[in-house]
């Protein structure tokens, strides 16, 4: 067994600081998944998923309903047992060393199963007691303040809570032990826009502190904003694994060229360029790949303005969704 100091040395940043002394010496990924498969009889909910999520990364897990996102999360937390494959959290096998693996995790489920006859405070205290990590009451109070869940509300029974308040409580219980890994299933579902903003700020803070975040979401703008990398699941299979920036390059960018005077249409566009609209003084094109060839084509023309619009993650993902639909 490595000493706590050795573990600190081996694993950079927050991961090392917060891991138990028995953490493996080499720096493992925060989450490592190898050939993970889950079958329910003839139905394959997840097929041969292989994925590594590094410490400090914010990872978005995307897919339509039933794609296998929640199944993956539940497998990682040993709530489901895999048909085949392996998974580990900070080097601890999710099943044979499940307690050690889950000791470093803060989990926000998609559907919150709170007891409605308990108060918010009772719920937080109870769940805090089940953690191995000590809950700092000051930090918890900060979380409550940021998510605008005052003491008055915390002392009310959950049956009096709105869906948004329950979601806030869910976020607080996941974050309250300040875990090195957060697994969040649809975290902003039911939050109003202001609270979503507070949540993104909170996420940015824990990320700065070195925490790893693995989140599933339907909200593509949210994923685009907060995630470093994404994986897209389709019918239980991963069809895309990429950084958010790279994924944008998978669909053509939109270019609008405005001319000072009338010009003739482009005679010969380079490959990957497509003219979508043309007037005597304006061209609208889509450009897949580098834009240099287009700039060369524009040389000598009376260009007044050139607008380049980056593709949005939504377009990339929707492309995959549409393929699934068809």
């Amino acid at each position: 067994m490595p000493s706590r100091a050795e573990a600190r040395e081996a694993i950079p940043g927050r991961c090392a600081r917060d891991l138990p002394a028995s953490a493996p010496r080499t720096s493992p990924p925060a989450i490592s998944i190898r050939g993970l498969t889950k079958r329910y009889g003839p139905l394959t909910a997840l097929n041969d998923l292989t994925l590594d999520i590094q410490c400090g990364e914010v990872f978005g897990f995307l897919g339509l309903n039933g794609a296998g996102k929640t199944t993956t999360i539940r497998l990682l937390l040993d709530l489901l047992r895999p048909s085949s494959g392996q998974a580990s959290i900070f080097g601890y096998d999710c099943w044979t060393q499940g307690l050690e693996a889950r000791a470093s995790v803060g989990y926000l489920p998609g559907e919150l199963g709170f007891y409605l006859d308990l108060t918010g405070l009772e719920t937080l205290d109870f769940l805090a007691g089940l953690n191995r990590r000590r809950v700092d009451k000051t930090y918890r109070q900060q979380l409550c303040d940021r998510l605008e869940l005052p003491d008055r509300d915390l002392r009310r029974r959950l049956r009096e809570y709105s869906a948004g308040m329950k979601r806030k409580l869910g976020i607080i219980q996941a974050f309250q032990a300040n875990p090195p890994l957060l697994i969040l299933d649809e975290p902003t579902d039911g939050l109003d826009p202001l609270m979503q903003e507070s949540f993104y700020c909170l996420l940015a803070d824990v990320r700065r502190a070195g925490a790893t975040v693995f989140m599933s979401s339907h909200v593509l703008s949210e994923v685009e904003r907060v995630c470093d990398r994404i994986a897209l699941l389709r019918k239980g299979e991963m069809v895309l694994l990429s950084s958010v920036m790279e994924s944008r390059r998978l669909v053509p960018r939109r270019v609008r060229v405005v001319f000072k005077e009338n010009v003739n249409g482009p005679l010969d566009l380079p490959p990957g360029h497509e003219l979508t609209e043309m007037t005597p003084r304006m061209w609208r094109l889509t450009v897949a790949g580098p834009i240099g060839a287009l700039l060369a084509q524009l040389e000598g023309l009376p260009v007044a303005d050139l607008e380049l619009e980056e593709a949005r993650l939504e377009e990339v993902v929707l492309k995959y969704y549409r393929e699934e639909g068809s």
Partner: protein
Amino acid sequence: MKGAFLLFRLSFKRARLLLGATGVLLALVQMLRVRIAEKIYDAGQFDQLNSVLSTYLREIIGSALGSIMTFSGIVCGVYFDTGFILALLALAIALSTLPASEMETGFADMILARPVPRHWIITRTIALVLFAIVLMLGMIMVGTLAGLEIFAPPDAPWPTVRQTGALALTLGTLLACWSGVAMAFGAAYRRGVASTITSLVAFTALILDWARRAWPPLEWIAWLSPFRYFSPYELVAGKPLQVENLLVLWAIAATGYTLAYFIISQRDISR
């Protein structure tokens, strides 16, 4: 173990109103039973009461009828009164299927996503059920004692401590037995399904035991009924406690609990 204690404390806290209300109700009804026994005793109507019993009931109760038709026998009737037993069985089944309920509501997800071993859920449930059984029997005893202190005629013989203890132990073991059955079903199925199956099996077993008492040839199959090993009438008649009967009931309970541990360790935790 801190987590297991927290789980128990939470479950007890949630069940305390139900347990408290049921316990107080049982104690009050038992006091009322003592009051009725006092009235019958004062009126000297035990023989009259005996004569109105149907032949079938006489066959079920057997030679213990004479002992039951006394002040002490009526007071002890709480330990084999079908209504009381069914109420206590319902409580035991409700508590034993708590894990199924927690899986359905998703609360189990919140617990087990933390460093909590799955078997704590079953250990907590066993502790809760056994605690509830002891509490209910304790409340019945309190009701008996209070009833006797207030209503018992000065010359009427009270049930002995030994007899009351043996009856309480027998009933407690029967309840633990059915809690084991309910827990095994509750670890595998949804709460509604587990409760229904256990209730139907218990009801069938009770009918089977009644039938075998009236018609001994049914003994070949009646040994399967846990009620076959629940013998309160004999205890009221002054016979000694049959330890082997208790062992059979505890064996069923232990098998049920073990199955529950096994099933919960293997299954997917899903709604």
